[in-house]
């Protein structure tokens, strides 16, 4: 057992500030356990969003010592305990109370993305045939738990608050999963360029760094989408080839 100091963001009527708490840490604890212990013993009114405690629901996103992380997946044994551990709510979103933020903008933006549009069925019974190797590519994107840590760390949203102009890494992953799907025939490139604001991404790879599901967001989702947008809008040679081939060039 060791006593560890935490500085946790607490809101009040005129704003918020870091408040210090000390609690006993035992072997195997994660940061969320410590927060729950503080909540139970010292701050019954502290608001914290959580659900599965297994890194699968994406609820307990916060900034621990300035790093966007899931509290339930951050082991106390990995944290330096000689100095206070700070816990802030996600900076990119408005704070509702203490560590709880309003992430509803993400759901609103997601609704704007064109839905899955499959080609006509391959078989008379209304089913399709897909090669496993084709679906493997987008399988990575399906791991997303919508913790929105990538949205939080993205400087376009975090620093510049361009939530209405740029859909952010999470929705780039969502769009990539649809756009690269072997059955999908929808073309989302114009949407990506305009309402999606893909040009705002300047490839800092911070989203990839913080993803708790280790999705290679920048290299496998955003850059391939940037390349598809370049095919359509910035590459006259590709446009010419497309004109002659008369095919949708991503199928």
């Amino acid at each position, binding site marked *: 057992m060791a006593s560890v100091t935490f500085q946790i963001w607490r809101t009040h009527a005129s704003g918020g500030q870091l408040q210090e708490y000390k609690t006993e840490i035992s072997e195997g604890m994660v940061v969320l356990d410590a927060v729950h212990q503080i909540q139970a013993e010292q701050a019954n009114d502290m608001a914290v969003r959580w659900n599965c405690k297994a890194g699968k629901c994406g609820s307990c996103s916060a*900034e621990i*010592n*300035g*790093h*966007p992380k899931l509290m339930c997946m951050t082991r106390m044994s990995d944290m*330096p305990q000689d*100095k206070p551990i*700070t816990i*802030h709510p996600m*900076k990119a979103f408005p704070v509702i109370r203490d560590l709880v933020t309003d992430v509803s903008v993400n759901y609103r933006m997601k609704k704007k993305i064109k839905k899955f549009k499959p080609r006509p069925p391959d078989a008379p019974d209304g089913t399709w045939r897909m*090669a496993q*190797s*084709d679906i493997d590519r987008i399988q990575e994107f399906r791991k997303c738990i919508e913790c929105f840590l990538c949205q939080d*760390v993205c*400087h*376009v949203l*975090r*620093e*510049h608050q*361009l939530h209405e102009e*740029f859909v952010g890494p999470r929705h780039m992953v969502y769009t990539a999963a649809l*756009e*690269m*799907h*072997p059955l*999908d025939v929808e073309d989302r490139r114009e949407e990506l360029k305009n309402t999606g*604001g893909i*040009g*705002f*991404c*300047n*490839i*800092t*790879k*911070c989203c990839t*760094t*913080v993803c708790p599901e280790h999705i290679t967001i*920048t*290299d496998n989702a955003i*850059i*391939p989408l*940037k*390349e*598809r947008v*370049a*095919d359509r*809008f*910035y*590459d006259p040679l590709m446009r010419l080839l497309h004109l002659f081939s008369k095919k949708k*060039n*991503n*199928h």
Partner: protein
Amino acid sequence: MNHFGQTARKDLWWVRPLLVFIGLFSFIVYATWAAFQGEHYAVGPYISPFYSPEIFGNSPHSWFGPKPSWWPTVLGFSPALLILWAPGGMRFTCYYYRGAYYKSFWADPPACAVSEPRKTYRGENSLPLILQNAHRYFLYLAILFVIVLFYDAWKALWFTDPTTGQEHFGMGVGTIVLTLNATLLGGYTFGCHSFRHLVGGFKDQLSKSPVQRKVYTCASCLNKRHMNWAWCSLFGVAFADIYVRLCSMGIWTDWRIF
């Protein structure tokens, strides 16, 4: 209001962008100096990668002879100045380097979850950064350069006997340096995100094209370590120039293996 550098991070977040800045800035300074020298870029069968292909120049490697008479004297001349814009453009528009120099040179952002010095942001949506989308055109040129550099590595296996004037097969340390340089540049170029897209990434059903799928898989494999290839090839190309330069100046002696 946030101020520049504000963050709750407690680690040494500034070390990585600083190292990137030092690495890239040092390379730019050296490459610019080397490009303007216009001499000591070839020795024996070796030619510096900064000067290859030597379109016009005074070395035996020149494709079309010495500097053309119509070249304006006011501009100054170095064979490197005719070609370096192409690999320079490839690196400048490269997705890895973009992310790296936006952080290190422009603090946009200085590091993840660290505040920036500017409040406005346009990204790559408008001029001039929208031109980064021309990356694939620099890639086409870079592929030609890699082919030329492998040809240089092949030529570096043929040494002229000063007594008889006859060429014979051999290998020196310079041969290894030039071959390694071409290999590193190949790993960087063929792992490029645009290359990965153009060889198959644009398709959703690669299973129908087995050869294309294989090439895409290889490009993806190289792409996973694109940053490492980018840095190794950057140092590799600078070292190859230093090696040829110092051998040409007589400071280093090329050790012949056989």
